[in-house]
C-alpha cells in the first residue's frame, strides 16, 4: 500500500489485515515499555492545516511507539492567507526527507493533490468534508471487538446493521465509515434531516431514513455524529432543541435500541445535543474504546505503509 487516502483504497482482506495487526499493536499498550523498533530511522511528519489535538496526538503516539521520528508541523491559518501554496508547503516538508506525511486539511482532496507532488507515503488524517479513513478503521476495530464479545472470531460484518446519525453532508467520518463498513459487509443506514443529507446520496450503497425512531430498533451499532457549531446557525435545522428531539440519542431512545446494540461517537461530543450523558456513559457505549483504538489502528496503518519498504 503506497498511500492511505480513502477508505475505498482498502478491500476486505486489507482491512481485516490492518485490524488484526491493530489487535497485536494494542498489546503493546499493556506493556510497561510501550515501544517496538519496527520503524526505527523512519521519519513521520504530521502536517496539520487544521487543529486536531486528538487525531494529531494519536498519530504522534502511534509513530513513537513504533520508534519512528515524529515531527508535528502546524500549518494552521490557511496557506492561502500566508501566500504560500499547498504545493509549496508540501514540497518544503517533503524536501526534508520524510518517509510519511500525515495530512489533515480543512479542504477536501488536499491529500490527493499532495500525493501527486511527492514521493513520500501520504496518509489522510481528515480532509475537509470528505474522508477520514483512520477514523473509520478505528471505528471498525472498536465495533469488531464489540461483536467479538458474543462471537469471538467474528471477522466480517455481514448481516449487521450500522446506523450513522447526524450531519452526513459535512461529515468525513460518515463518508469513510460508509465505505469501510460496507466493505466489511455491514448494512449502513444514514439518518438525518434532509438538509443534512448530501446530494447524490441515492447512489451510495446505503439506506437513508429521516426518522431515527424507525431505525433504532434495527441497528446493531448506533453511531452519533457531532453537530458542528456552524451548522447550528446555518439554518440546517430550526433550533438545537428541535434537533435533539428529532435526532438526539436521548434517554428514552436508549430504551428503544435493539438489545445488545452499542453506541459510538467519533468525538468530541456535544452532551445534551446529539447525545445525552446517559447514552455517552451507558454500559453499551464504545466511545472511550474508540479513543484507545485510535493509537493501535494508526500504529497498524503506519506499519503497513512504512514497515515493509526500505
Amino acid at each position, binding site marked *: 500500500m503506497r498511500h492511505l487516502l480513502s477508505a475505498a483504497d482498502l478491500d476486505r482482506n486489507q482491512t481485516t489485515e490492518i485490524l488484526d495487526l491493530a489487535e497485536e499493536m494494542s498489546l503493546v499498550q499493556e506493556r510497561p515499555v510501550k515501544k517496538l523498533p519496527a520503524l526505527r530511522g523512519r521519519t513521520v511528519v504530521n502536517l496539520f492545516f487544521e487543529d486536531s489535538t486528538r487525531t494529531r496526538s494519536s498519530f504522534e503516539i502511534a509513530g513513537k511507539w513504533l520508534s519512528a521520528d515524529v515531527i508535528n508541523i502546524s500549518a494552521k491559518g490557511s496557506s492561502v492567507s500566508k501566500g504560500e501554496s499547498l504545493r509549496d508547503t508540501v514540497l518544503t516538508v517533503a524536501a526534508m526527507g520524510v518517509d510519511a506525511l500525515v495530512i489533515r486539511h480543512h479542504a477536501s*482532496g488536499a491529500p490527493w493533490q499532495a500525493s501527486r507532488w511527492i514521493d513520500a507515503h501520504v496518509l489522510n488524517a481528515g480532509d475537509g*468534508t470528505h474522508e477520514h479513513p483512520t477514523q473509520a478503521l478505528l471505528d471498525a476495530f472498536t465495533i469488531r471487538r464489540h461483536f467479538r464479545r458474543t462471537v469471538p472470531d467474528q471477522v466480517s460484518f455481514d448481516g449487521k446493521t450500522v446506523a450513522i446519525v447526524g450531519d452526513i453532508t459535512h461529515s468525513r467520518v460518515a463518508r469513510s465509515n460508509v465505505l469501510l463498513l460496507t466493505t466489511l459487509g455491514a448494512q449502513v443506514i444514514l439518518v438525518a434531516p434532509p438538509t443534512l443529507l*448530501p446530494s447524490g446520496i441515492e447512489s451510495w450503497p446505503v439506506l437513508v431514513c429521516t426518522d431515527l425512531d424507525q431505525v433504532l430498533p434495527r441497528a446493531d451499532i448506533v453511531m452519533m455524529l457531532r453537530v458542528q457549531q456552524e451548522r447550528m446557525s446555518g439554518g440546517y435545522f430550526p433550533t438545537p432543541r428541535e434537533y435533539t428531539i428529532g435526532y438526539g440519542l436521548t434517554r428514552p431512545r436508549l430504551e428503544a435500541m435493539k438489545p445488545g446494540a452499542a453506541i459510538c461517537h467519533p468525538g468530541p461530543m456535544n452532551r445534551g445535543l446529539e447525545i445525552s450523558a446517559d447514552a455517552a456513559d451507558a454500559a453499551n457505549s464504545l466511545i472511550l474504546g474508540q479513543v484507545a483504538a485510535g493509537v493501535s489502528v494508526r500504529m497498524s496503518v503506519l506499519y503497513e505503509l512504512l514497515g515493509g519498504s526500505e
Partner: protein
Amino acid sequence: MTELLIRGADLNGRGPSDLLIRNGRFVDPSDAGRDVDRLDADGLIALPGLVDLHTHLREPGREDAETVESGTLAAARGGFTAVLAMANTTPVTDTAEAAAHIAALGARDGYAEVVPVGAVSKGLDGIELAELGLMARCSAGVRVFSDDGHCVSDARLMRRALEYVRAFDGVIAQHAQDPQLAGEGACCHEGEISGKLGLSGWPPAAEAGIVARDVQIAELTRSRLHVCHVSCAETVDVIRWAKQRSINVTAEVAPHHLTLTTSEVLGYDPTYKVNPPLRPHEHVEVLREGLADGTIDAVATDHAPHARHDKEHAFADAAFGMLGLETALAVVIETMINSGLLSWSELANRMSIMPAHIARLSGQGQPLAVGEPANVVLVDPSARTVVDRDASASLSRNNPWHGRELPDPVVATIWAGRVTYQKS
C-alpha cells in the same frame, strides 16, 4: 502599400474564392497590383475574425498572469480579432478613465481589438451603479457592462442598470449566480460527485433562478440583457421561454461547458475548477442543442488566466477559471461542426457575427466582402494536434485541454489587414 491576396479560400464554407486586402479593407480581388503578398489558402475556410465577448486580460493588476499583449496574442492564435476585456482588473474598470486606459493598452499592445467591458457597480460591490454613462460616452465607447465574477444579485440594482443603459443601447452581461444558493465556497456542480467528494455544491437553480428573474426585469424595462457563460439545461429552458416572448435577451456558452463534465473534478485537480462549474453530460448535451438552435447566441471563452501558484492550492482554495482563447475554435469545431450540429456559416454567426452584434462592434463580425474591414481567420478543417500547455502564448498554464487531441484549425489570423498570427 503592400496588398495581401488570399488565394482559394472557401469563403465561410460556401466555395473557394480570392480575397484581396488593401489598407485594412477587402477590395476587389481582380484589382491586385504588382506589390502583393500572396497567401495560399487552398483547402482552407475563411471565416470572419472571431469575437470573444468574455476575456480576462488581467492587466492592470495581475500582469504576472496575463497582459493585454500576451492575452491578445493568444487571441490571435485562436482566430480572434476582437476581445471584450472583463472589468474585474485591479483597479476595476468602473470609470471612463479606466475604460479609456484599457482601450489605450489595446491600441498600443494588442494583437486584436481590445474592447473594455465596464463594471455595473462601483468596485464590483453590487451596491451602487458605476458611471455607466460616462464609460459609454468616453473614447472607449463602452456598450457591455458586467460585474462578471460577481452576480448583480440585488434585483433593484439590476433593474436600474438595465433601465439606465437603454439610453445608449448598452447591455448588461449578467454573471448569474444566486449568492445565497451558491455562495463563495460553491465550487462543484451539486450532485453525486460533489456529495461524494465533499465539495460545496453549486446547483443549477442558482443560475437559472437569477436568469428567470432577470428576463422578467428585462421585459419590464424593455432593455437588453445578456447572460454570461450559461452552464446548465435549466437556464437554456428559461432563455428559450424568454425569447419566445420576444424578451431582449442573448446568451453565451463557454467552450469548456460544451465538452468537459463534472467527472473531471474527481481527482481534485484545480485546473478544472471554474465558475460556473463543469456540469454533467446531460447538461452538456442541452447546451450544444441550445447553441445549435440559436437559443444560445454566442460562444464566449471566459478565458481566465491564473498564475500557477494561485492554482496550486487545495481545490476549495484555488482560483476559479481556465484558459480558452487558443482552443475555443478547436473545441467548437470538435463538438459542433464534427458532430453535424452547426454549419460553418452558423459557426461564424455564433463566434463572430452575433458576439459583434451583441457588443455593438461596427468593425467586427462583418461579411468577407469588398469594402468591409479585413478581419478574417483562415481555418484548416482537418488538422489536428495534441494540446501542449507550454506552447501557449498566454502567460498562464491553467489549460484544461493539455494532453488532449483537438482540431488545430487556425492557419492565419488577420486583424484590420494585419497578419496577427500565421502558423509556421
